[in-house]
């Protein structure tokens, strides 16, 4: 497991992306799956950066591992408890005029990843995504 800990701010998105892309390259992850994982990582990181610490800031630890052809990425923060698996899905059948702009990110994560897990432990949010590389 490799990990990176940084301040959960939108400015740090590039650093998280660079870390994840490097790990995916090393793991030999196919392009398409890499993109789906990168999108999921962005959505979950941005979520923490935008909401977890209210007006203040705090740290987030992003961990990466790849075992038996499955990539796992975990996100740990000590902000407000938030369970993304409980987020209501947007109605994707509505026409543009009735579609809301929010709620898409987590929905994309749920749809594209094999697993989206949440646990709250020792005052920390722990979100884990898993995706098979083939």
């Amino acid at each position, binding site marked *: 497991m490799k990990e990176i800990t940084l301040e959960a701010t*939108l400015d740090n998105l590039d650093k998280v992306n660079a870390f994840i892309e490097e790990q995916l390259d090393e793991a030999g992850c196919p392009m*398409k799956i890499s*993109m*789906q994982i990168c999108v999921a990582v962005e959505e979950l990181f941005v979520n923490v950066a935008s909401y977890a610490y209210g007006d203040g800031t705090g740290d987030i630890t992003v961990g990466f591992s790849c075992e038996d052809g499955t990539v796992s990425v975990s996100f740990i923060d000590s902000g407000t408890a938030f369970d993304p698996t409980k987020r209501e899905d947007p109605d994707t059948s509505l*026409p543009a*005029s009735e*579609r809301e702009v929010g709620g*898409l990110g987590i*929905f*994309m994560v749920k749809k594209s990843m094999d697993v989206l897990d949440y646990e709250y432990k020792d005052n920390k949010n722990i979100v884990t995504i898993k995706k098979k590389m083939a």
Partner: protein
Amino acid sequence: MNVNKIENGEQLTVEIEGRVDTTTAPALEAEIKGSLEGKTDVVLDFKNVEYISSAGLRVLLSTQKIMNRQGSMKVINVNEDIMEIFEVTGFSDILTIE
């Protein structure tokens, strides 16, 4: 991300290159919105778009809503990976993709 706009009367073509993510989507939105006045025919060329997250999708949705009122919009040259994102999110039904 790079954006190249071609304006021709009531037509606007926006060629987008690179990543449309949380960091770059605001710039794309500003570029598009700044040129929409009086346009009835908007084309977003995705030939060189490598990546799109929900921040980028939000820009597409809000632009589509504006164009529903004043004309039409289409997205062209969408690659397979991005098409899958459009399908998963229901955007393939909202957008006109050619």
